[in-house]
Structure formats: C-alpha cells, structure tokens
C-alpha cells in the first residue's frame, strides 16, 4: 500500500497543477488548429505537440525536462539556443526559393525593404512598454514574419522569451489571411487595387540566377555580418539549387534536411514553452505587439508602394507592398487573392513572390542589424 502511494505521489497526476493543465490545453488547441484546420501545420503541429509534452509534470532532478542538463530534450533544444536549427532551415529555404521573379523585377525589392519598418516600429513600442532592449528586439523581429529568424534572434538576445515569441510569430503567420486583407483594403483605393502589373518581364538567364546568390551573400553579409548564420546558408542553398551541378544536395537540403530541422525546432520550442513563462502578462504584451508588428509591416509596404507611384510612370499595384513581409508564400497568395476579388484577370502572384523573396532577405538583414546593435 505504501509502495503504491509512493508511486502515485511520483506520477504526473499528483504533480500537476492548473498551469500545466492550461498549457496542455493550449498545446492541444495548436494541434487541432494545425491538424484539423490546416493552419501552418508544418510548424504548429510540432510546436503544439511540444507544448503538450513539455508541460507534462515530472519530478525534477532526473534529467527528464528540457531545462535539465543531460536530458534528451535538452540536447535537442541545443539546436534552438545555439541558432543551429534556424540556420539549417534557412539552408533548406534557399534551396527551395526561386529568385527569378525578383531578378526580373528588381524595383519590387524596395517593397520588401519597406515592409521591415514594422520591425523598427515594434522595437520602439516594446521599449515604451518596458521591455529591455534585448527583449524589445526579440519581440520586434516578429514583425519580419519569419519564424526561424525570430527564433534565431531571440535565442541570442532573450532566450527566456523563445517560447512566446516563436508561438506569436507562427500564430500570426497562420493568421495572415485574417490580418492582411483588412489592412490592404483600408490603405488602398479600388482604383489602385485594379492596377495591372506588366507581364512582359525580361527572361532571367541562368547566369544571373547563379551569380545572384554570390552577390547577395557578399553584399548583405558585408553590410550586416551578424546575419551570416542565416544568410550564409540561405544563399548556399540557393546556389546549390541554381548551379545545377549538385542537384542531389539541393534536393536533400530542400527536403530531408529542412524537414528534420523543422521537426526538432518546432518540438523543442513547444516543449520549452512552460507555464511559468507563457502564462504571464509579458506573453500577452508579446502577442499584442506581434499583431501590431504584422499590421505595421503590411501597412508600411503598401504605403511605400504608393509613395513610389508618385515618381513612377508605370504604376505599381500598392497591394504588392503587403507581400514584402517574409511569410512565403502566404502573403504573396493573399495579395494575389485580394487583387483577384477586384479583377479576376489581374494576376499578381509572381510579382508578389518577388516582394516576398526580398522580404526574406530583408528580415534576416534586420536580425543581423539588431543583433550587432545589442551585441556585448
């Protein structure tokens, strides 16, 4: 009887309190949203499951939890805290990205740059709300709409916020179809939404596609060396893809490698999101600021496009500015669909992908800039 009682006292049932139960419910909700509703399943599914696993109560000191040295989860979590997983994900992203739209329409890259203003506006907002500079930068990078970049920067600057920042970033990426269209409609007129973009863009040669990753990595990393861990692998992946001589490596990078990193990244980030960090007023502020960041990023891209139109003979559809956020291809698809609702013959997808691709580079540069400002 004593043995049974002793055993029961060491089970999760006896060790649980309401906070763990709430977090397990949050994890189950994420699993439902991903598996049942198909919201960003590639990330939300492992994150959701990780939240459930990470909040199952256990007795401390036996190397079981993610924050306990020598535990399996702790070793897997090393890839997050050291920035390894985001770099590997970027390698795969580069191997999957086709820059031909962007190379054919270089002026649309400016919209990718303009959309990063959401990051800096959120930086100021976060500081005003009392976050330290490191925490503010980690929260601000959510505005880049890039999950791996957010996790990378937060791991370097404010590791205690990885959980809420990652969940905010991926949740808002999943909510792009809800967040972006109202902002797009608010900031554009019907006449502007009807602007058609030219379809007769020049053909991009293979030489340009091969030279671009080399030029891109040298220029961007000379400007912001702290973005090397992200942009280095990113452009390497792209170079492998376009060179055509290492197809096997490019295919592996864009499939098995990125998928493995994504699984461990999502799972361990979720497991690290424990009740004492997540169920706090700080997390609520992070979620609010994340929504602001996304909206401002969308709006700044659109407004910049309208400003560009003041100087251009051939006008740009301002909706494309919303695709300057780094959420590939979700925001490009939303821009295309909003334009299609106004005019079913208006195909903006490839133009929006140009802005999207530029946004990926822009958000990584911003992460490097913020890290270099706050490096000690």
């Amino acid at each position, binding site marked *: 009887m004593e043995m049974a009682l002793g055993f029961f006292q060491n089970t999760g049932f006896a060790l649980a309190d309401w906070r763990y139960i709430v977090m397990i419910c949050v994890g189950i909700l994420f699993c439902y949203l991903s598996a049942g509703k198909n919201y960003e399943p590639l990330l939300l599914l492992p994150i959701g499951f990780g939240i459930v696993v990470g909040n199952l109560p256990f007795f401390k000191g036996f190397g079981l939890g993610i924050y306990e040295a020598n535990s399996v989860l702790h070793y897997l979590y090393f890839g997050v805290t050291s920035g390894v997983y985001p770099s590997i994900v970027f390698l795969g992203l580069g191997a999957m990205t086709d820059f031909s739209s*962007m*190379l054919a329409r*270089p*002026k649309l*890259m*400016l919209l*990718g*740059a*303009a959309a*990063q*203003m959401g*990051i*800096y*506006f959120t*930086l*100021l907002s976060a*500081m*005003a*709300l*009392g976050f*330290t*500079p490191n925490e*503010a930068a980690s929260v601000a990078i959510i505005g880049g709409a890039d999950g791996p970049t957010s996790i990378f920067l937060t791991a370097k600057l404010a590791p205690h916020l990885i959980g809420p920042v990652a969940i905010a970033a991926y949740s808002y990426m999943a909510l792009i179809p809800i967040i972006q269209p109202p902002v797009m409609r608010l900031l554009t007129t019907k006449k502007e939404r009807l602007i058609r973009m030219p379809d007769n863009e*020049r053909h*991009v*040669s293979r*030489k*340009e596609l091969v*030279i*671009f990753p080399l*030029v*891109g990595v040298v*220029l*961007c990393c000379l*400007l*912001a060396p702290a973005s090397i861990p992200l942009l280095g692998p990113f452009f390497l992946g792209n170079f492998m893809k376009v060179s055509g001589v290492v197809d096997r490596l490019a295919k592996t990078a864009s499939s098995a490698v990125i998928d493995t990193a994504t699984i461990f990244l999502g799972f361990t980030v979720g497991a690290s999101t424990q009740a004492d960090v997540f169920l706090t007023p700080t997390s609520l502020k992070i979620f609010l600021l994340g929504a602001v960041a996304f909206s401002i990023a969308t709006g700044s891209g659109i407004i910049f496009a309208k400003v560009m139109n003041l100087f251009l003979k051939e006008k740009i559809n301002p909706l494309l500015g919303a695709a300057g956020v780094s959420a590939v291809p979700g925001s490009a698809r939303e821009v295309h669909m909003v334009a299609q609702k106004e005019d079913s013959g208006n195909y903006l997808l490839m133009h929006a992908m140009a802005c999207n691709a*530029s946004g990926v*580079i*822009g958000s990584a*540069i*911003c992460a490097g*800039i*913020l890290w270099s*400002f706050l490096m000690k």
Partner: protein
Amino acid sequence: MGFHLITANNGWAMALTGAIIVMLGLSSLALIISQLHRVLLLFEAKKSPRANETAQDDAPAVSIALDWLADPDSVARLCQVFTTHLGGAFKLTTLYKELERMDCPHPHLTIRALRENGQLLPSGEGLFGWQVTY
C-alpha cells in the same frame, strides 16, 4: 507614454539607423541586380561569335516553345496520355511534375496555354480536369 524609456535605451537611434541600413542594403542589391544582365551582355558581346551562337541557340528554344503550343488540342491530347493515371481531377502542381518527368517542353507555358485555351478547367477544391477527354 514610454518615450523616456525609448530615449533611455537609445531606441530612436537604433530604429532610424536600422531602417536606413536595411533600405540602403536592399536598394543596393536591387541596383546591382538591375544592371547584372547588362554587365553579362557586355561580357557576351566581347566574345561576339560565341554570343551570336548563344543567341541562335536561344532562338530555336523559343521557336520550339511556340511550335509546341501552336496546336493546343494536340497538346491537350498528348498531355492526357501522359497523365491518364492521375484520374479525372488533379492538382496543377501534380500535372506540372508529370509533364516535367515526361520531358515535355516548357511544362509551365504548356499548362498556362491549356488553361487560357480552356482545355484545363477548374473542378473545385483546387483541382483541375480536362474539358474534353480524348
């Protein structure tokens, strides 16, 4: 509101400097990209006999594409043969992969032409089907 906190943490300078740096960086990259094809053409012009050959090599590729798509009905018939195993409704990405696998010339242009000519029609839920089954 909290402006003193921003000032105390040097927030204004960080935000302004960071914004300028990222705009300058991407603008420079855009400028280089916009001139890259011209620089490459200059190099090609220096090797002019080889450049002419390349231009001539490109011309047949373009005319093959145009010849291939000159008769959309035949193209549709051929593509259906390639894709019988896909059934009556399929995703365009699946069709693209099949055409690529069968070494069909210009699968992307082909699918676009088939859509524009009405041979490929949407059948709901993101799937497409053939207008006429041969």
